[in-house]
């Protein structure tokens, strides 16, 4: 028998071949990056050009890795362009968001963020509704709502970026630099990471649980907006004006998002486990994924979070070295990042060495969320330090 024949029979099961869609995607990403460079290149330093190029490469890879991202990106790009075009037509003044129809009702950053908030809250309810009714159709609707929420969130961020320059060129900055802005980032990234695992594990039963964290974040965001006026675009303090921010913050929030998802899976695990113990034929447990699967998913998500949190902490240290003159100052935010990191390192070790699974790990993942929340919010609320963004 020839090697080639064997190869040929295996060939049929090859991965998805490159198709027209992929080429359109690659062309789209490249054109988009070149356009951004031509439009805004004069405002970038060499590192930022590097980040732009890196983002383009990553996007191409991500599109291949997870095709759903392509469609999402087209939506985001389209809606963002409508917003930019609308501002342009109104002479690039910020007050256009009260006059231009599209801006006022859909795509100015504030409208988009309100849409995002509504969609996520709606998605939460829809997921639970689907769980109760065992309705596949309702569950699919919930997924669509999450996608729509993510799209609006991303549009809100992109447009806010532009708006910061429209208000005052001096104020211009990427919207990941105040507590308000990173909350949007958190919502969007958590939504995305969840969607990825939902697709990969083919279960929508966990959606409601994960959306609970996101809805809480939405509630905080709305309170922060209406009670504190935090949505107003403020200029940056000098220490925050750095290209480091563009990579440090997103990496951090992939970590926070993943840890939150793990905690909510933990809760779903505990509930399922309890109803199984009460009644092995419990109808609730029948609707949920298997315990093994949730346990596995928890591990995967924590691994992802841990990896990105590691990178984020290292990037933070490098930034601190440049901004404050020391890579580690035991500043409360830094220290709490370390605590979060150590906590999950311990989680991973215990799972590995003692082979602990299930209930204790689920509880631990949930406690991990409390620690993470303190690192994210509590430090800003209760402790003072060098991290100057967003005091409550």
């Amino acid at each position: 028998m020839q090697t080639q024949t064997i190869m040929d029979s295996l060939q049929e099961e090859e991965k998805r071949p490159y198709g027209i869609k992929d080429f359109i995607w690659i062309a789209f990403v490249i054109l988009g990056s070149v356009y951004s460079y031509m439009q805004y290149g004069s405002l970038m330093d060499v590192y930022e050009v590097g980040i732009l190029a890196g983002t383009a490469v990553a996007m191409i890879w991500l599109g291949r890795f997870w095709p759903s991202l392509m469609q999402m990106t087209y939506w985001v790009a389209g809606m963002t362009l409508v917003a930019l075009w609308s501002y342009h037509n109104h002479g690039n003044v910020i007050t256009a968001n009260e006059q231009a129809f599209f801006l006022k009702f859909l795509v100015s950053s504030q409208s988009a963020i309100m849409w995002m908030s509504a969609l996520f809250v709606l998605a939460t309810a829809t997921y639970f509704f689907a769980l109760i009714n065992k309705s596949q159709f309702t569950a699919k609707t919930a997924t669509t709502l999450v996608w729509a929420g993510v799209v609006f969130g991303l549009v809100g961020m992109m447009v806010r970026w532009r708006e910061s320059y429209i208000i005052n060129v001096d104020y211009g900055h990427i919207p990941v630099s105040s507590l308000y802005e990173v909350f949007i980032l958190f919502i969007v990234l958590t939504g995305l990471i969840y969607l990825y695992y939902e697709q990969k594990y083919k279960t929508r039963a966990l959606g409601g649980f994960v959306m609970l964290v996101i809805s809480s974040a939405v509630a905080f965001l709305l309170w922060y907006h209406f009670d504190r006026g935090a949505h107003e675009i403020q200029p940056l303090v000098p220490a925050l004006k750095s290209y480091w921010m563009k990579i440090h913050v997103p990496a951090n929030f992939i970590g926070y998002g993943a840890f939150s998802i793990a905690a909510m899976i933990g809760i779903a695990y505990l509930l399922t486990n309890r109803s199984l113990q009460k009644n092995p034929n419990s109808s609730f447990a029948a609707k949920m994924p298997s315990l093994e699967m949730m346990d596995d998913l928890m591990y995967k998500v924590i691994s992802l979070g841990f990896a990105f949190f590691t990178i984020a902490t290292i990037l933070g240290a490098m930034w601190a070295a440049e901004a404050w003159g020391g890579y580690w100052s035991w500043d409360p935010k830094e220290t709490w990042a370390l605590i979060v990191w150590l906590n999950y390192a311990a989680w991973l070790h215990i799972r590995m060495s003692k082979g602990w699974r299930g209930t204790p790990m689920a509880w631990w993942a949930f406690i991990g969320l409390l620690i993470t929340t303190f690192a994210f919010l509590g430090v800003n609320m209760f402790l003072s330090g060098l991290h100057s963004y967003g005091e409550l």
Partner: protein
Amino acid sequence: MNFLGSMNLAVTLLVMLSIASVIGTVLQQNQSFQDYIIKFGPFWTEVFNSLGLFHVYGAAWFILVLVFLLLSTSVCVVRNGPGFIKDMKQFSEKLSPTALKHQPNQTTLETNISAEDQQKIVSVVMQKHGYKTKIHQRDDGSVTIAGLKGKWNRLGYIFTHVSIIIICFGGLLDSNLLLKYRELTGNLLPETRTVSLDQVNQKSWVGPENLSFRGTVNIAENQKSDVLFLPYENGYLVQKLPFTIVNKDFRIQYYDTGMPKNYESDLELYIPGQEEPIRQTIEVNKPLYYENYAIYQSSFGDGGTELKINVYPLLSPMVNPLALETAVNKVEPLKTPVGRFRVEFNDFRNFNMVPLSEEEQKETGHKFHNNGPTVTFKVRNEQGKAWEYENYVIPNEQEGRWFFMTGVRNSPAEPYRYLFIPADAKRSKNRFFNYLAILNDPQKVRRIFQQQYPMAEGMDQRTYQLQMRLIEQLMTLFRQTGFAGISDFVKKSVPEAEQAKVSDYYFTQTTFALQSAYLELLKEEGVIKSHQEDIPDFDKTWFEDALTVVSSLSKYGPPMYFDITSFREIQATGLQITKSPGKDVVYFGSALLTIGVFFMFYVRQRRLWINIKPENERLELTLAGKDNKNLPEAKTEFDKIVEQIQNISKQA
């Protein structure tokens, strides 16, 4: 040894480190002892202090935990490392068929193709799935093909754990262990007083031999420094630098909110033995690197702005200000008829932005308004009592009028109380001080009053004289205590039944007197020609504004007003300088850590064994698979390979 390398110890240490870190963030670190006593009381302060909780990250036990973590991880790597490296290389192809049956995933198949073809199919499928293969011919005539994939996972383990060791080591290099050692042996003592450099305790100096440090220094424009101040326990140390830094220029830009937007310094670094200095501009996030040293732009302040000041005596009947040439950070003694004072000039600010109301924003198109420069200073009397002032240099417009603002407070905890000295038509304070000088001379006021209100016909001389005496006394009272003082006086010294009437009379008289003095001044200035003429509106409101000020002067502290006539701003740059030999070590460790973590999570080490045994014209296949992490996908993948082998074997 076993204990040191155990996972239990590792997790315990991780948890201990976390708890220590929590303490360090919840208890504010490195505050003054006084603050702690106020917060916790003397007993707990003593307890916390002896546990090192006020400097957790420098406490001996904390370092000990770190050292143990380092040890534990090292032992762990030394113990597991070699095994893991071996594991990376070996295929375990000699594993017995019975052992294969005990692997996490295993199954058997039967086929009826030639052994040669079967071997080929198995090898190709395994290679297609990314396995490296090794073939082992057994004595019983069977063949085992062993596959191995993802051996980098093991490398990931080694990278991660070695990187922890490297990072801890780098961190220790940058810690102040050397200084701690010197302190323990009595060769080092932090300085706790604020004194000039030449008075700093000799034991508080550290030379350039210090391995690593991180400190700050402020350098005024066109000044230089070759020392650095290191915060240390409850005081500081002075670090001698192997170079001299000159601050040629400091610049700062502001947002329209008055918030600093960016600041930068033109530095020159003079290094002994090198003729040309290193010249570089540094700004926030853009430091200067020289050898092991890094110089960061970290803050800014006043570097001794030069001030020209006129000190107006507020109780003198003549306008004769005392000219003073001084600077921020200087202390000036003042000898005055009302006592001796020391004036400390604390700070100068060139911009004071205040938010505008919505209407004003619409009008001006700006969100903020610059109220102009201010000087803050303290006046201290001989008893040590101090008043703190904030004086604006230029007048500010309020409701169409211009005022010079001056704020005063008795302690830093209070807000400033402001006086608004009205500017005259030339936007100066001259008229105010001229007017004040008249009021400070009750006899002169009386003369002016007499001129404007000569004795009426039919009035008797004594009554008139009494009235004039009263004018004089009222003026004295008014200058000493203001309108409120006159009210108080009436309340205290007049029977209650008469109070309303007397008070009315006194106020009318005082107002007449003040007015007549003002009219006289206006005449002198040439604004009006006679006392009967109507006064322009501007001068009317000026009069009211001025009286408000004069009436409150008694609460303004010592009777002096510091008028800043000119200034030359000198800024100081705040530099942070570090020597950090461990930094690159830590970065290297971090890179290793990142790579290691990804290898460990996203590369799974997988093994596959397929034993092909001829049995009665047929082939019996034993397939076994093992994943170093027993994840659900290991089973799926194994099943897929089995299926493929089965299918292709059938087709053949």
